[in-house]
């Protein structure tokens, strides 16, 4: 299967899973995982900067559209995409990547991948929850929510890696 078609399918599948299933899940009343950002995390290494940002924008916009929250997910996802190149450099250190591959458990190894997703998920969730509340007076509660939701998202990402992308 061509790489582009796979990326497109991943986009649609992640938006549907997020909107139909994960948006209805609430652990302990207010912890909500946001798995859809996995799409931006797993774009190929050679994705040009503008495409990275624009696809993050479209992804965020779709999720916003279906969860009745205009702009919130868009803003947070674009910000995360903006941070991706820097975080990727930080996580990879001197590690080289093979052309045509993408950041994943399979291609990066567990430790590098874990550092990479943790940083970006925390960046995304923190900005998302801060944008949602739009004030700094409840910052401790907001950060707790962001932290707990991040934990669940990271767990879900690792599970999907084992399910779909494990070394055969």
């Amino acid at each position, binding site marked *: 299967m061509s790489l582009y078609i796979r990326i497109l399918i991943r986009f649609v599948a992640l938006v549907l899973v997020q909107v139909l299933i994960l948006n209805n899940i609430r652990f302990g009343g207010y912890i909500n995982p946001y798995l859809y950002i996995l799409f931006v995390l797993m774009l190929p290494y050679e994705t040009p900067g503008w495409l990275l940002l624009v696809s993050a924008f479209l992804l965020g916009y779709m999720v916003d559209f279906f969860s*009745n929250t205009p*702009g919130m997910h868009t803003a947070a996802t674009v910000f995360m995409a903006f941070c991706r190149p820097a975080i990727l450099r930080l996580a990879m250190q001197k590690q080289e990547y093979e052309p045509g591959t993408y950041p994943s458990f399979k291609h990066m190894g567990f430790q590098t991948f874990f550092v990479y997703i943790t940083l970006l998920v925390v960046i995304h969730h923190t900005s998302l929850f801060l944008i949602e509340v739009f004030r700094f007076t409840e910052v401790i509660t907001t950060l707790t929510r962001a932290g707990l939701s991040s934990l669940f998202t990271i767990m879900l990402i690792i599970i999907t890696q084992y399910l779909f992308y494990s070394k055969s």
Partner: protein
Amino acid sequence: MRNLLAFLLKYKFFFIFLALEIIAFSLIINHTYYQRHVLLNSANRFTGTLYSWNMGMAEYFSLKRTNVILAEENARLREKLPQSLNNDTATAIPAFDSISMLQYSYVPARVVSNSTHKRNNYLMIDKGRRHGIDRDMAVIASNGVVGIVMNVSENYAWVMSALNSHSRISGRLKRSGYNGSLLWEGVDYRTGTFRDVPSHAEIQAGDTVVTSGYSFIFPPDIMIGTVTDHFVARGDHFFTLNLAFSVDFNRLAHVYVVKNLVRKEQMSIIEEL
């Protein structure tokens, strides 16, 4: 000009980022009435249907509980029937005449989307303008207050839940009669905050808080919740009460929209001032 272009091209990653963020934030900021209106009328024709399917399935799982709640409500209503009054005089024949004017009418609705985990929660119900729903109508469940209609489309209405930082609902302590206002400070969808009760009021845990009816939106004496504890916050002269909501917002399925038929008249007196 050429230098400017070169500069923009050199940092194009940053500038594209900036442009997209500006679009995103303008979406957030303009998401007042206009945005919600557009959303309701175009997107929600699609998502509304999607949510209807989703809730249609989810409804089956809560049938048993819903039946219990409806049965309890039936019992309460039955108590109010003239037949259940003790007829020891011959004059207790109730008749509808022009004196007993109907003030509140109720439209049953189903919840098609709902949230309790955000700081500002909203819900969508499957009744809209076509069913006579309009802005600023109250939404209640059979066991208490739910929220206020913010916007309507042809077939759906968008309701600001009591679990919202912008929500203020006027309430009253049923036993002692003191007034205050209900707000929600986030985190737990089961507990709300009741403010502005004078500090000389006598309050006990377990006291019932009901709507006051002062806002012309909610009918009076609709249950809000029960007091769990109370304290005077530092620098405040009023009691702050923690409430346990009587409604389980996480399991809302059937609600009623309350139309105040004389609201127009009530509001016109205020506007004349």
